[in-house]
C-alpha cells in the first residue's frame, strides 16, 4: 500500500509498477493458512455433525408424524417445462385443500432441471381417496394456462406416493398434467 511518504508526482512514476505487484493482499492470504485451516476444519466437522442430526430428526419426524402404514406423499415434477411457465399448484384430497404452492423463478428452474418437489406429506386411512391437482401458469403463446387432474387412490397399509407429472406434449405443443402412483 502506498503511503504519503510519496508525493503525487512520485506516485505517478511508480503507480503503474506498484499496482501490478503483490501487495498486502497476497501476504494476508499466505499468512492466514494455518489458523483459517483449523477454523475451517472445525466448521466442516460441525457441518457434518449437523447434517447427521438433521437427517436423524427428519427420519424421526416422519416416524412420529407419518407412520408408514398411513403415510401419503405427493411429489411434483416438470418435464421439461418449455410449454408451461409454472406459477402455482393446488392439491386437494377428498375435496379438501391440503397443499398450495406459488413458485419462484428459482424453484421453477430447479424443477425444469430435473428436481422433484415434495408437495405434500400427510396421513391417509386405508380405503379409496380422490386426489386432485390444479396447475396454473403461462402456457403457449403467453396464454394463461389452467389444468386439473384427478386420481383415485386405493390406499392400503403401505406408504402411498403419487407424482404430479407436468410434461410437454409434443403432439400438440401443449403441457399435460397427470398423476401417477409410485409403486
Amino acid at each position: 500500500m502506498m503511503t504519503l511518504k510519496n508525493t503525487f508526482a512520485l506516485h505517478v512514476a511508480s503507480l503503474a509498477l506498484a499496482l501490478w505487484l503483490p501487495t498486502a493482499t497476497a501476504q494476508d492470504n499466505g499468512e492466514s493458512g494455518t489458523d483459517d485451516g483449523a477454523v475451517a476444519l472445525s466448521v466442516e466437522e460441525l457441518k457434518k455433525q449437523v447434517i447427521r442430526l438433521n437427517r436423524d430428526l427428519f427420519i424421526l419426524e416422519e416416524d412420529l408424524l407419518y407412520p408408514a402404514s398411513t403415510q401419503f406423499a405427493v411429489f411434483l415434477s416438470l418435464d421439461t417445462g418449455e410449454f408451461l411457465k409454472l406459477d402455482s399448484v393446488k392439491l386437494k384430497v377428498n375435496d379438501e385443500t391440503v397443499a398450495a404452492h406459488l413458485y419462484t423463478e428459482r424453484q421453477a428452474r430447479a424443477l425444469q432441471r430435473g428436481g422433484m418437489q415434495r408437495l405434500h406429506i400427510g396421513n391417509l386411512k386405508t380405503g379409496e381417496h380422490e386426489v386432485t391437482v390444479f396447475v396454473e401458469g403461462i402456457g403457449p403463446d403467453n396464454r394463461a394456462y389452467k389444468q386439473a387432474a384427478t386420481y383415485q387412490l386405493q390406499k392400503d397399509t403401505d406408504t402411498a406416493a403419487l407424482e404430479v407429472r407436468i410434461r410437454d406434449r409434443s403432439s400438440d405443443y401443449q403441457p399435460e398434467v397427470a398423476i401417477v402412483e409410485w409403486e
Partner: protein
Amino acid sequence: MIEWLNRITAGTPAGLALTGALAALLHGPMAVGDELPQRASDPAYGVALYEYYQGNAFEALTRLNVASAEGGIDGHGDHPALVEGGLMLSYGMTHEAGALFRALLDEDAAVAPGTRNQAWFYLGKVFYLEQDRVAARDALERVDVDLLEDENEALYHEWLYLRGQLALAGTAATNGETVDELIDALPESSPWRAYLHYNQAVGRLAEGQTEAVTADLSSLDDLLDELIREQPELEPPLANEMSALRERVKLSMGRLHLSRGDFAGAKASLEQIVLDGVFSDEALFDYAVAASREGKAGLALQALNTLQQRPLFTPWLQQVPFARGFLFEQMGRQQQALQAYREAASHYQSLNTRLSSEQEQLTEARLVDALRFGREGDSPGQVGSMDPALARPEPGTPTVLTDAYGRVKVRPEDYSLAGLLATERFQLSLRDLHELYRLQDSLGQWQKQLESFDIMLATRAQQREQRIRETLDALEALNTDQWLARQAEYRSAIEDALAREDLRFFMTQEQHELADRLAQVEQTLSQLPDDESTREQRETFQRMKAYFNWRLADDYAVNRWAAEKQLRELDRAMNVFVDQRALIEQEMASGGENQALAARVAARQAALQRLQGEVNKALSAARTELLTLVDTELLQQSQEVQGYLRATRHAAARLADTLFLGRNGATVSPAPEAGGDRD
C-alpha cells in the same frame, strides 16, 4: 464479491489467483448436474436435486443422507455420489468431498467408468482449491479427456482451464502441454478461455514481456467485445462477469501504457471504461496520473474532481484530496492549492477521528452494520440492506445470498472496510461466521421441534394411560378368574367321567330328557301295584329302558367325542383370551412404541445440546477472528490517514509561507517535484 476483489487486487498475481479461483467457484459445483435434466427415477433423489438446483446445499445434503439411511437411491447408479461431492464442495466441506471422491476411486469400488472419470476431475479440483497443485495436476491428468468431453463438455472446458491455471502457477503438465495450447483448445465463446487468456497475460507481464502482453490484452479485449455483443442470451451473472473482465482488461491496458510512458495510449484505453462501472474509480485515478504526466493538468484535475465528488471507497483513494492540492500547485494556482490542502487536511482529520472511534467501539453489530448483504430477490449487481436490529448476518435464513462455495455476497456499507472485505481471509472468516450463525439458528429451530415432539409424546402417553385404565376396567368387568375356574371345573368333571366311563355324564340333551322321563315312569310304576294290571306296562318299561341303555352305550363314543371337542374349543378360546390378556398386560407394563420414540427424541436432544455448545465455541472463535481482522485493518488505515494528514498540513503550511513571503516581496520557492521533504 468478485467485482470487489477485482477492484482491490487488479492486476496483481494475488488478484490473478483469486480471479481464477472465483471463476471456478462460480461455475464449478453446478457442472455436476449440467448433463441433466433427466427424470428422477427415485423421488428421494428428485427431491435432493430440487434443493440442489436451488443452491440449498444443506437441505440437499440432508435429503441425500436421509435417502442413504433409508436404503439408498435407485436407478441412478453412482451419479448421486458425484452430486453429493459437488454439494459438499458447495457447502465448504472440501475435506469430506475429497474423501468421497477418493472412495469413488477406490480400486474395489464398483463404479461406472464415467463416474470414476468425473471423480478424478473433482478430486483434482479439490486439490486445486486446497492449493496442492502437484496433486491437482496428477489427479487431472488421470482424467480420460475424450470420455469427459463426450459426457460433459462443460466439465471438459473447466478441466482445460484448471490445467492452464496450474501451468501458470508453475505446475506444468507432465506431457509438456503449454498454456497456449490449452487456450486454443477452449472455444472462443467459453468464459474459461477469457479468464485463462487474461491470467496468462498478467503472468507474462510479471516476466516483463510487455510486447506480448499488449498483444494478448488487445486480442482479449476484441474477443470479449465480440462475446458480449454476439451472445445476448448469456445468463445475467455470467454476462456481468464478462463485462467486468472486459473493463478490467481495458484498465490493465491503460496501466500497461502508463508503465511504458505512453500516456496518450493509456488515456485512450482508460476512456473506454464506463463511468459507473466497477473499475471507474481506478480508471479515473489512472487517467489523472496519465494526464498529469502528459502535462495536461486540467484534464487530470477534472478526473480528480469527479473522483472527489464520489465516496472515497478504498484507502488508496484517500490520496485524491491531497493530489488535487498538488495538481493546483503544479498549475501555479496557489490559492486554490492552499484551499485544497486545507480541505484535504480537514477531510483527513475527520476521517482519522472516525476511524479511531470505530476502532474503539468495534463490535460485531457495528461490523454487520457496515456491510450490505446480497439477498434473494435483489436485482443483479445489487445488494440488500440489512436490518441493523438483527446485528448479525440474518442467521438461518437462506435469503442471504452466497456464492457456490458458501461465501457471503456482501458489499461494504462503510467503505473503509472495502479493502479488507476483498481479502480472502476476511471472506472466509465472514463465511464461517455466517455458516455458524445458520447452524446455530438451525439448532435453535430443531430444539423447538424436539420440544414439540416431547409435547406430542407426552400427550400420547396420557391418552395411552387413559386407554389402559379403560382396558383394565373392561377386563375386571369380565370376571376373568371366574371363567377360568369354571373351565377347570368342566375339565375336571370330564376327566373324571372318562375315568369312570360314566355313560350318563356324556348324554345328550335329548338323552337326558329321555332318562328323566324313564325315571319318572319308573317312579310311577313303583307306586303302582305290581300285578297283572301293570305287568304289560312294566314289560314295556323294561324294554324301553333296555333299549335306552343300549343306545346310551352305543352313543357313548359319539357323545364323549362331542364333549371332548367342546372342551378343546373351550380350551382354545380360553388360551386366546389368556394370551391376549397377557399381551395387554405386557403392553400396559411396557412403554410400547411411544417409549422407543421418546428415547430417540431424548438422544437427539442430547446430541443437539452437545452440538449447540460446540457451535457456540466455534462462533466465538470466528467472531473474535473477524473482529481482530477489522481492528488490524482500521489501525493500519488510521496510521495511513495520519500520514496523509501530516503531509497535507505540511504542504499547506509550506504553501501559506510561500504565499506570505510572496506578498512581502521575498523570493518564492517552487513547488516540489517529489516529496523527499515530507514526513
